[in-house]
C-alpha cells in the first residue's frame, strides 16, 4: 500500500473499531475499505484485523467469500452483464460473448490499458426490461453490445 492508502485505511477503520461490549463487523468494515480504496489490498488484512481485534484469518475468510469484495484494482469502468435466467432467456450469454470478443478479454478480466473490467452478475431485478448491463453505477435495459460500447470511454479520449 502507498502512504496515502495507509492513511486512508486508518481513517476508514476508525469508526469501525468495536467499542467495549460491541462486536466487530468484518463485512461492513471491508465494504467501507473498498469504498475508500477501490479494492481491499491483501496487506490491508493485518491492519483491519488489528483494528477490529479479530484474527487475520477471519478477515481473510470474509474477504475471499464475497463476490463483490475485490483484492486487486479493477478497470476504470466496470461492465457487468446480467446472467440471471430472465436475461439469459433474452440472450445475455450471447451478449456477454459479443462483449468478450469486442473487448478482447475474458470474464473477470481487465483490458490491457486498464480501462474496462468485464464481470457477470446474477440478476439485478431488472428482468422486465432485460437483457441488463450495468456500466459503473448505471443500469441499462434492453441492452445490446453496441449500446454498451457507446457508454465506454475510448482509450484515446474520444
Amino acid at each position, binding site marked *: 500500500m502507498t502512504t496515502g492508502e495507509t492513511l486512508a485505511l486508518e481513517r476508514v477503520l476508525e469508526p469501525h473499531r468495536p467499542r467495549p461490549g460491541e*462486536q*466487530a*463487523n*468484518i*463485512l*461492513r*468494515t*471491508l*465494504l467501507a475499505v473498498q469504498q475508500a480504496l477501490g479494492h481491499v489490498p491483501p496487506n490491508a488484512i493485518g491492519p483491519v484485523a488489528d483494528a477490529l481485534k479479530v484474527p487475520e484469518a*477471519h478477515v481473510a*475468510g*470474509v474477504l475471499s*467469500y*464475497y*463476490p*463483490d*469484495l475485490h483484492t486487486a484494482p479493477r478497470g476504470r469502468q466496470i461492465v457487468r452483464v446480467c*446472467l*440471471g*435466467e*430472465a*436475461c*439469459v*432467456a*433474452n*440472450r445475455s*450469454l450471447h451478449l456477454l460473448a459479443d462483449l468478450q470478443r469486442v473487448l478482447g478479454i475474458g470474464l473477470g478480466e481487465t483490458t490491457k490499458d486498464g480501462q474496462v473490467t468485464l464481470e457477470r*452478475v*446474477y*440478476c*439485478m*431485478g*431488472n*428482468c*422486465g*426490461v*432485460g437483457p*441488463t448491463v450495468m456500466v459503473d*453505477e448505471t*443500469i*441499462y*435495459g*434492453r441492452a445490446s453490445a453496441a449500446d454498451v460500447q457507446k457508454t465506454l470511454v475510448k482509450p484515446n479520449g474520444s
Partner: protein
Amino acid sequence: MAITLYLSNDTSARAAGADRLAAAWADVPDIHVVRTSSRGVFFLEPLVERDGPHGRLLWPRAKPDDLPRIRDGAGGISLAEVPFLAQQQRAVFAHFGTAQPLSLEEYRANGGWRGWERATNLPSEAIITELKTSGLRGRGGAAFPVWHKWDIARRASADQKYVVANADEGDAGTYCDRMIMEGEPFRLIEGMLICAKAVGADHGYVYCRWEYPAAAATMQAAIAEVERAGLLTIDKRPFRLEVFRGAGSYVCGEETALLSSLEGGRGMVKVRPPYPAMSGLHGKPTVVSNVLTFGTVVEIMARGADWHAALGTAGSKGLIVLQLGGRIRQPGLVEIPFGATLAEVLERFGGGMADGSRFKAVQVGGPLGSLFPESQLLIPLCFDTFNEAGAVLGHGGIVVFDDQTDMVELARHYMTFTADESCGKCTPCRIGSVRARELLERIEGGSGTAGDLDLLADLGDTMKATSLCAHGGRAPYPVLSAIEHFGDEFRRRLPAKGPNGTMDR
C-alpha cells in the same frame, strides 16, 4: 398553466429510458415532471402519464420528441385500455405508479399506517392470532406459516430481540421486493414495526443485496423521513432500524446465512435447529421475513384477516405476486389470487411470445425452480400443487424460454450458477455442483458419454437428499427437469463413439 407529467423512478423504468425523458424535459417551462413508483408494466416503459378528464392518460414507450403530442393530450390511452392491469386484483401494489416514494403524506393518503395504527391498539398475541386467521405463508420462497415463526420469537424470553427484513431478493427473475423498497419504502417499515410490536423487538435491519443500490438508498432515506416524523417508535420507545448492504452472495438469502453475513462473517448456512426465531442474530431471538411478507402483513392488519383468508385456495390464502420475464411480449408484475393456472397467467398477462419467438419452456420459482414444457402448463399456481409436482413457487418468478434456447447450455448455466454461489458448508452442494457442472460442460462440448446422464441423475438425487439448504437441495431440479422434457437435445450431443473409439451406447 404548467402540465404535470408522471414518470416512474423505478430502476427498470430508468433502465428503459425514463431518466432520458426527464432530462430532456427538465428545462421546458410549462412542464413539471413528478417521479413516482412503478406500475410494474415494464413492457410499456418508459411510460409517461398525465391526468385527463377521466383519470390518468398513458403514453407508453415514450420518446423525448413525443412531448408536443403529450402536451396536446393526443394519443394517450386510459388505464382501462391496459388489460394487463385491468385484469389484476392488486392489494400490496394497488397504489404503485401513482405516488412519490418518499412522500409520507401520499403514503398516508393511500391508506398507509392504517395497519400499524390497528396493531398498536392490539396486544401482541392478538396480532399473531390475526396472522394465523389470515393463513399468510412466507413469501420469500419457503412458504412457512408467518404467524408460527413470529409466535416462536414472541414466546422466547430474551433481553434483546431483532426483526430482519430479508431484502436479498436473489432469485433471478424476481423484482417485487425491489419495487416495494424503491416504490413504497414506508410499507416495509410499517410491516417491520408491526412485527417488532408483535414479538417485542426494538432493533431491526433491512438486509439489502448489493445489486439493489437504488432500493438501499430509498430505504435509508425513508427511515430518516419516518424518524424525523417521530413515527419510528413502539409504545413510546424508539425502534432502531438500519439498512445493511450485502456483497453479492446468493446464499445470503437463506436466513441463517443472511444472519451470519449481517454479523459481518462469511455468509454460510447453519444447521437448524436452533431456528433464528429462537436463536438468531448474536444468538438472540430474530424474525427473518421477506420484504413482500412484511408488505402483505400491513395489508392484513389494515383490511382484517378475513379479507386475506377469503382469497386464494384452501392451502394458499391471499394473493400471489408473479413477476413475468423472459421471451414474452408483456413482462411485468402481476398480483392475483392464488389458484390460476400457469397457462392462464401466460395467456392473460404474458400477451404471447416476443416477436419471432416460439414457446419452449417456462421456469417458475427462480434459478432453483423446475422447467415446465407446453404440455404441463395447466398446473394451478398454489403451494400444494407445486409441492406435489416436485416444483416450487419460490418468490413468484416466471421466466419464459423460446425455441432458440439451447437446453444443454441452459442446464450447464444453472450448475455454473450453483457452483459459483455454493457457500461451501456442506459437501453435496460444494462438490456436487462442481462435478455436475463438469459433466454438463463435457456434454455441451460433445465429449460426454451415455453414462453421464445417469450419473447426473444419481448425483442430483444425492444433492436433493443430503444438502443442508435449498441451494444444493433444489439445484438439481431445473437441470433434471430439462433432461426429462428435452432429453433428445442432451442425447444428440453425445458422440456415437466413446473417447477411445469404443462404442459405449
